[in-house]
């Protein structure tokens, strides 16, 4: 499991709009670099990122090799009900990671 860093408020007011920042530890090998042996290093990137809020879509991103290593994504969410945010990353070579964070809406 790769390390993740997810920043979001622990509690928010109903209908408030808040920022969520996510960082995933991943090399994002672009597939354009040449290794020490002269061969092109195979591509190994995170292709997709998705965030669901109580099962409803917040944002879905399609990433490319032009995204820097340790992909960082910041976006905004509208608070509706208490529950949880689910973060999903999927990528090359069977990479898949899910993280869940609780959210209290006052």
């Amino acid at each position, binding site marked *: 499991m790769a390390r993740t860093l997810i920043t979001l408020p622990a509690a928010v007011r109903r209908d408030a709009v808040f920022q969520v920042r996510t960082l995933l530890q991943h090399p994002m090998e672009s597939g354009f670099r*040449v290794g020490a042996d002269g061969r092109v290093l195979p591509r190994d990137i995170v292709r997709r990122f998705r965030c669901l809020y109580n099962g409803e879509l917040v944002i879905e991103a399609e990433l490319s090799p032009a995204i820097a290593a340790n992909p960082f994504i910041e976006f905004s969410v509208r608070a*509706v009900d208490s529950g949880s945010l689910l973060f999903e990353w999927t990528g090359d070579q069977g990479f898949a990671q899910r993280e869940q964070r609780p959210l209290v809406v006052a």
Partner: protein
Amino acid sequence: MAGLARRQLLAAAGGLWLLRPVQATPESLNAALRDFSGGAPLREGRVQLDIAPLVDNGNTVPVSVAVPGVPAEQVLALALFTERNPQSEVVRVQFGPRAGERTMATRMRLATSQQLVAVARLADGSCWMQRVDVIVTLSACLE
């Protein structure tokens, strides 16, 4: 002996030429823009692409896209494209019903000084873009 070394050097140089990295072209950028807009005409404006105009290190460049002055639920998708990275695509984002403001920030790689294009697709089918030129002193992707 010296001739052989020279020959080897030339052969190696030829190999290096073959390994020259692929690069996106204005044509592939236009194709990517067309693919995202679905054929809708792209108009300048509304979208705001935030990036430092002078980039020290192309390996990780903070960039953000916003659509100020447009109601949030009108913005369906955002995308970012480059002119001279190995590929034109950078990121495409689709917003769901739980998204707040239609903004997105990430960190990207820049292979060289070039132009970036941010595009937003709105609910009425129109597409808006902003082009930004950046200067890169240390490039990414090629080391």
